[in-house]
């Protein structure tokens, strides 16, 4: 493979790669940087690309690696899983605070899955999560792997992982419920 091939791939795939990166990091400048980095890395490694996979698969695997790297660096910051975040939802006995108690959403909750408006609200709410939690949640869907795999990759304990997911879910659920009602 040669450099000319790479230029052709930039024209062919960078749009799709940008949209993918933007979807994963929700920041257009950052997404552009990641796509650029991916192509620069590809340029360095192009002689080792033998065409065992399609160029598109190869490029996306490099891009995904860059995205995971970005989140991994972010997750190095200390976790905040203090009890303070839970006490917003539960009283000292661990019971729901009355105003935070989950209500039923819909007669048929399953139909929410096909509701575009619901997905839109979910996306908005995901972006409102604290950085660390957002990273954890997004990584799960980026890597598409089991909890145990993510813990290993991110170097966090299982305990820590589901505690983060627990807090993230509480907040997401609450956010969706309030927006769903007011929107």
């Amino acid at each position, binding site marked *: 493979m040669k450099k000319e091939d790479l230029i052709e791939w930039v024209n062919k795939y960078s749009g799709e790669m940008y949209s993918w990166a933007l979807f994963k990091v929700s920041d257009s400048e950052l997404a552009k940087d990641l796509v650029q980095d991916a192509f620069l890395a590809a340029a360095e490694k192009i002689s080792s690309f033998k065409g065992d996979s399609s160029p598109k698969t190869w490029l996306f695997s490099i891009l995904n690696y860059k995205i995971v790297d970005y989140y991994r660096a972010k997750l190095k910051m200390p976790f905040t899983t203090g009890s303070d975040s839970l006490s917003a939802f539960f009283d000292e006995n661990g019971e729901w605070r009355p105003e935070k108690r989950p209500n039923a*959403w819909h007669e048929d909750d399953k139909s929410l899955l096909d509701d575009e408006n619901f997905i839109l609200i979910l996306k908005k709410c995901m972006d409102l999560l604290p950085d660390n939690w957002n990273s954890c949640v997004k990584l799960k869907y980026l890597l598409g792997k089991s*909890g*145990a795999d993510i813990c290993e990759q991110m170097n966090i304990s299982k305990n820590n992982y589901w505690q983060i997911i627990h807090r993230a*879910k509480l907040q997401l*659920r609450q956010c969706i419920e309030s927006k769903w009602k007011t929107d």
Partner: protein
Amino acid sequence: MKKLMKKIMLSCDKATELIEKRIHFKLTFWEKIQLKLHLAFCKPCSHYEKQSYIIEESMSKIKPESVPPEDIKLLKEEIIKKLS
């Protein structure tokens, strides 16, 4: 009796934590029983359980949006400039 019930019954914060744990990891036998018992009596946590699964499923349904062609054009030019 009351004391015993307290020992068996989970609080809501613990119950919701187990609901999340169950999605990603296995619960122990004892945890399963405790959670089942709690959910049988606790309506808010039952709602939470249902909604947690909906959120879980919805997140995997989110798809990338299309981006402005103008943005892509600029990005392409920039990358090609850097590559050559």
